[in-house]
């Protein structure tokens, strides 16, 4: 008898005991699988109404969500994204069936609506909007309405800029006023910028148009200057600047932790950002944890980028009950109580005037007495030709 034959016989002998052991193991495995797969099997057939939201992570305030869920008997299901074009692509690829609410900023709500991804909204159903800063709503700010019309396509909730945060102990005050500080040989190896292609090109576009003298001249499209609508010559010049800048950069950041770490440690001396790191640096300085003062240049001499975030209702929302829930969510979001949480917990300024609840220091940190500045900022937009911008960005990255 060969070894393998013997093995076979032994295997046959072990049959009974092994079968018992195995079925036990199998049963527990099945139990575990059922537990683990339970939630999404249940989700798929959920009877309760689900509010599916494509949003920025920082607006998910847990206590607000829980209270809202209990009050309206719905389940809140958020999905997060980073940049506008990322969310837009997701909506474009059939996302209207996946999401009820979606967020976007600047010019983007118009684009969403033009593409049939979102529906017209009624501001009258959002009573909390009455307390908004004038600079954030029509007639001063009209990007939430269809172009040349009065129908609303989005409800604003928060605003901010994309200014440059500066380490004042390292960077000359005179240099800090201009965007050019980000391209200055003097600060080689201590500059960081975001990894997003749109804002990098747009910010360079402002500088380039200023230097070329094309910013205030007549634009080819007959509209006022928009850094997201650049001519081929301007784009070509942007490319040159960006390639030159690459040699000066420490890195490009995708995560905010990186900005904090690099700025606090003094490795990086300047970074365009939303102002979050800036407020953190200010607080640290006040507490004596940081021996230098930070500064945030919201609007450099050439001009700056800004944004107003909005809620939009997806065109996939067709039944009235769901639509009411969407409005209820937006209105609830704009309540003083929630906006205070968004400001204090997530560090984002609200479009609702909540100054009466805030301390003097908070009002100063969040630049809340300067909301009129919003009107002077170039709003985030969709690149006029993503194809051309992609090419410029790839050539910069490959250089």
């Amino acid at each position, binding site marked *: 008898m060969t070894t*393998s034959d013997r093995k076979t016989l032994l295997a046959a002998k072990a049959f009974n005991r092994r079968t018992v052991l195995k079925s036990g193991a199998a049963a527990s495995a099945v139990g575990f699988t059922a537990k683990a797969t339970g939630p999404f099997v249940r*989700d798929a057939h959920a009877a309760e109404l689900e509010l599916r939201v494509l949003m920025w992570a920082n607006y998910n305030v*847990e206590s607000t969500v829980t209270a809202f869920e209990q009050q309206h008997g719905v389940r809140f299901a958020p*999905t997060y994204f980073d940049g506008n074009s990322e969310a837009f692509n997701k909506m474009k*690829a059939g996302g209207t069936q996946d999401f009820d609410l979606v967020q976007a900023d600047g010019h983007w709500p118009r684009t969403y609506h033009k593409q049939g991804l979102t529906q017209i909204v009624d501001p009258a159903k959002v009573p909390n909007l009455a307390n908004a800063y004038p600079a954030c709503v029509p007639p001063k700010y009209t990007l939430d309405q269809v172009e040349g019309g009065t129908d609303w396509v989005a409800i604003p909730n928060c605003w901010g800029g994309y200014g440059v945060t500066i380490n004042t102990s390292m960077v000359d005050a005179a240099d800090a006023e201009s965007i050019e500080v980000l391209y200055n040989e003097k600060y080689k190896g201590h500059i960081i910028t975001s990894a997003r292609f749109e804002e990098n090109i747009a910010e360079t576009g402002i500088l380039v148009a200023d230097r070329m003298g094309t910013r205030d001249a007549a634009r080819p499209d007959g509209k006022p200057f928009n850094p997201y609508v650049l001519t081929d010559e301007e784009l070509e010049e942007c490319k040159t600047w960006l390639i030159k800048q690459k040699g000066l950069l420490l890195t490009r950041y995708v*995560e905010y932790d990186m900005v*904090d770490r690099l700025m606090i440690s003094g490795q990086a001396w300047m970074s365009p950002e939303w102002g979050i790191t800036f407020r953190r640096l200010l607080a640290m300085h006040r507490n004596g944890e940081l021996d230098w003062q930070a500064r945030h240049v919201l609007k450099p001499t050439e001009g700056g980028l800004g944004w107003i975030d909005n809620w939009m209702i997806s065109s996939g929302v067709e039944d009235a009950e769901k639509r009411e829930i969407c409005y209820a969510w937006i209105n609830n979001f704009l309540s003083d109580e929630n906006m205070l949480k968004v400001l204090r917990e*997530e560090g984002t300024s609200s479009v609702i005037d909540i100054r009466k609840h805030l301390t003097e220091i908070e009002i100063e940190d969040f630049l809340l007495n300067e909301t009129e500045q919003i009107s002077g900022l170039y709003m985030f937009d969709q690149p006029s030709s993503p194809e051309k911008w992609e090419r410029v960005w790839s050539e910069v990255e490959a250089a």
Partner: protein
Amino acid sequence: MARRVDRWLTPVALGTMLGLLYVFLFAPVIYLVYTSFARDTTWPFPWNPNVKAYLNLINLRAYQEALWNSLGIGLWTALISMALSAMGSIAVLKYRHRWRGWFSIVLISPMFVAELLIGISTLIFNRKVLGLPGNVGSAVIANAVHGMSFGFLIMLAQLVRYDWRLDDAAMVFGANPWRTFWHVTAPNIWPAMLGAFVITFLLAFNNLEISFYNLGAVPTLPSLAWGSLRYGLEAELFALAALVNGVVFLAFVVIYVLMRLGIVRFGYRGI
């Protein structure tokens, strides 16, 4: 004398290499666990132990849901991948058939395709051709296609020297194919199957690039982490990762104790 030195020097040198590899692989994980207890996740020095993030987890349903979704996707993917890859590898290795080469190529082919492309192409196909919205099922399937090729290769690597005469012998003794598999083949190849299961589970559990495009509104751990990058990773994510690692560590301790006591041997036939 030289030989005796050589006899212990080799294992010590190689063992040191393994040790260093563990240090390298686990350093970031240890850092995550450490940071999960810190008050400040971006600047966790000096250390102020703090369990706030863990307490928050109890109330944050988004994280719990993401964890269960990731587990579900991982388990289903692993089951499908393991079954298909085990069947495929047995077919290819055991039977002389004119299509054997082609079958192998087809079964390995998902590996030729970058994860990102699998994600994107499945998205395009589901949306534009089939008109399906994002859902867990298509994420599982897209992950399983990818996982299957990994499972297949892992099975091949181990079964390439498996003695199929064992199976034939069992058949000669009158066992039917199913019994043969269960009592002869499976006990011998199960380490490979377990390997395929574990690897495909891990690939799917934390997959970002395939799942991202196919999930629609369903959150998973990696998509949560990716989504929160804009404003920095939240302490709760670190805490959840630390908890998952805690469970894994416990599992290892249990396996170790069981092996130490000789209760399980995991196919090891030595002393």
